């Protein structure tokens, strides 16, 4: 039992030892108490309330009848309670002829779910090579991939878009004529590719941190049993790195679902995600706050569910980046 107090004489009997331990615990308790003093608690509560009120206000608004919302503040609900779900129905069905908010909700799902898998698979392959295959220039290559975060995705948008739509022509020769997907009913290919690429530098870095920490004995044992890199990757690394994969998956899901910029640039108009529809509808709804409120909550319900359901993984994923990076 280590103690925090200065001990001049070595402790002879167990009773003294226990006494010292008890004192130590008392000191610890005091230290805790003082750190979380009343002033601190009140300050924390004020911050917490300040942080919650904006969301709460809009949440309440989304359930109030339209007429009430337009004439009185949301806080009057406490004196004059009335609730309705009409706002949600109206919001889901509003939108242009091409796309309602409800449809763009499905688009968001169709964009986000595949991207999470693409990014994880491609990044974990490279992360594995960096961690467990020896080759010349490995460290430099690893740092180079991380450093690619230096390229703001804004810088990559326009050339990548023109590569997708017009292809690559050198001189008079066309090597890649571009994708011809504008007239499809729902085409997400370009958005998938763009999101996957932009996720890679960070994904490789975070997954590498985890994969390289796996004990080398485990991998040596598999090699002795005759497994090649393919089997080791699939049957050992993937299960062992599951927590890291899960946490990055959650992060990536929330980022892609919440993205506005990449989708605005790459998605054809029939395949726009929720964020984009919400953004443009919010202009046409103008001051109809009951619709804006309902629309907003339709868009944040999925990330919030993911957040509450998988909070543990979410936090771990962030910390993996933080403590190492």
């Amino acid at each position: 039992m280590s103690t925090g107090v200065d001990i001049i004489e070595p402790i002879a009997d167990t009773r003294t030892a226990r006494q010292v331990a008890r004192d130590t615990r008392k000191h610890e308790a005091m230290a805790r108490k003082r750190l979380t003093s009343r002033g601190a608690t009140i300050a924390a509560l004020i911050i917490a309330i300040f942080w919650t009120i904006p969301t709460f206000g809009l949440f309440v608004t989304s359930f109030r009848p339209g007429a009430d919302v337009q004439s009185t503040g949301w806080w009057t609900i406490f004196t004059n309670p009335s609730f309705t779900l009409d706002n949600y129905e109206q919001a889901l069905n509003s939108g242009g002829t091409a796309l309602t908010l409800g449809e763009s909700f499905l688009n968001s799902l169709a964009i986000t779910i595949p991207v999470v898998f693409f990014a994880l698979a491609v990044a974990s392959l490279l992360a594995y090579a960096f961690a467990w295959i020896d080759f010349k220039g490995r460290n430099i290559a690893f740092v180079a991939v991380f450093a690619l975060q230096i390229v703001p995705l804004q810088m990559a948008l326009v050339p990548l878009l023109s590569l997708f739509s017009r292809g690559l022509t050198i001189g008079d020769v066309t090597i890649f004529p571009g994708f011809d997907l504008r007239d499809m009913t729902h085409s997400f290919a370009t958005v998938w590719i763009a999101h996957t690429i932009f996720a890679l530098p960070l994904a490789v870095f975070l997954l590498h941190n985890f994969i390289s920490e796996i004990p080398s004995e485990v991998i040596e044992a598999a090699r002795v049993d005759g497994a090649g890199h393919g089997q080791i990757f699939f049957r050992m690394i993937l299960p062992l790195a599951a927590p890291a994969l899960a946490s990055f998956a959650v992060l990536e899901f929330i980022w892609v679902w919440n993205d506005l910029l990449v989708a605005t640039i790459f998605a054809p108009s029939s395949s726009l995600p929720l964020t984009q529809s919400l953004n443009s509808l919010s202009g046409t709804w103008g001051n109809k706050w009951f619709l804006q409120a309902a629309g907003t909550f339709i868009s944040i319900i999925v990330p919030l569910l993911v957040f509450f359901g998988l909070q543990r993984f979410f936090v771990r994923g962030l910390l993996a980046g933080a403590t190492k990076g």
Partner: protein
Amino acid sequence: MTDTHTAPPRQRSAKSAKQPAAQAAPQSRTNALIAVVAAILVVALFLFLILQQPRETKPTSIGFSLNSFFRWLGNQNQLVQIPIVLVVFGAVVGILLLLIEYAPRPGKLYFWIRLVACFALPVLAFMLLRPYQNALLYVLGIAVVLGGAMFLLDYRSREGAGYHFQLVLFAAPAAILLLVGLVYPAIATFVQSFFDKTGKDFVGMDNYVWVFTQPEGTWSVINTLIWVLIAPAFATVIGLAYAVFIDRAAGEKFLKVLIFMPFAISFVGAGIIWKFVYDYRQGDQLGILNAIVTLFGGEPVSWLAVTPLVNSLLLMVVFIWSQTGLAMVILSAAIKAVPPEQNEAAELDGANAWQRFRNVTVPGIRSAIVVVITTVAIGALKIYDIVAVMTGGRANTSVLAFEMVNQQQRFQSYGHSAALAVVLFLFVTPLIVFNVIQIRKQREIR
């Protein structure tokens, strides 16, 4: 982390096992020669390709291509597309892993597998892109030369045949995506920034002059700088204060979730939530901020139109609101990692809570604070959504990332847009370089 435990069992193939060490030098010289010859051939084919006479041609493919697959997929229902594309992608990754697994094994069968794969994969990859007929010969030539060189170099490699083959398969998907999607576009944007609107005429530094002289440009630069100075500072200070206040308090978990939740909300959602807070109208106020102002007898204010800077600061509030949770979670974990003995020792020495925080906790979480500040700062530099949703860049609230999309989409002015992107790149650079230095230090320690 290092090279010690990763050495693979060498000499899997009978051939390299027979080779004495003395032959290593001439062998690597031959390898270099092969690489050089292959490179020369590829460059030559490329030059011939550029010098092609123009003639009428159309795309060719081997019956199917990426484009035809995406077109077919594009006609399915959104939700049906998810499983289909995942199964196809899974199959491709599966084949890749099978090749990785079997390729390095010794034996005749595996030799043939490698040989076929080396030629088939590049050819298939190029054909899936539907090259035009006049490019076909050269493209196939390049694919065959690359495949051949790769096979030979791999076959002769010191670690045994198949070693480099599997390495290339592991790294190729990510490497190709990064080169095509980040490296090439970054260079293209840089070049574009010296050309005019249409991208045809060279204009030198004109676009940069525009950025730093026109109001749209200067405001976006000034605002971005203010964002990057103010947002990380506030997010970190509030996050740290909150983390310290609730450390070991009752209901700590719940209190954390309250602050962290906005991080899961999109900037679009956050923008609308706060636009409602700032709402302004005649008569009864709906927005809580103006309601409070009028409660105390003030006149309601159209907050997002107040210049100078007030409206920009109000946008920053939204960003800080969203990012403080991130700062708090990371800092809270770091605080818990500080050994409690240090705090106790300081307490016994008579240090008060503030002194302990200042002299024990803060130095203990220094690296976490650095991480939080750089992460939030990079986020602030790239901010787009909040401005787009809340003000659309009006009333001098524009920032670099927003203005560049604005220039490109509204004004079709690619030169200006590219110059703004390059300026943004220059702003991000020191932060990433700093991070890279930190990582290199850590890797040396390990």
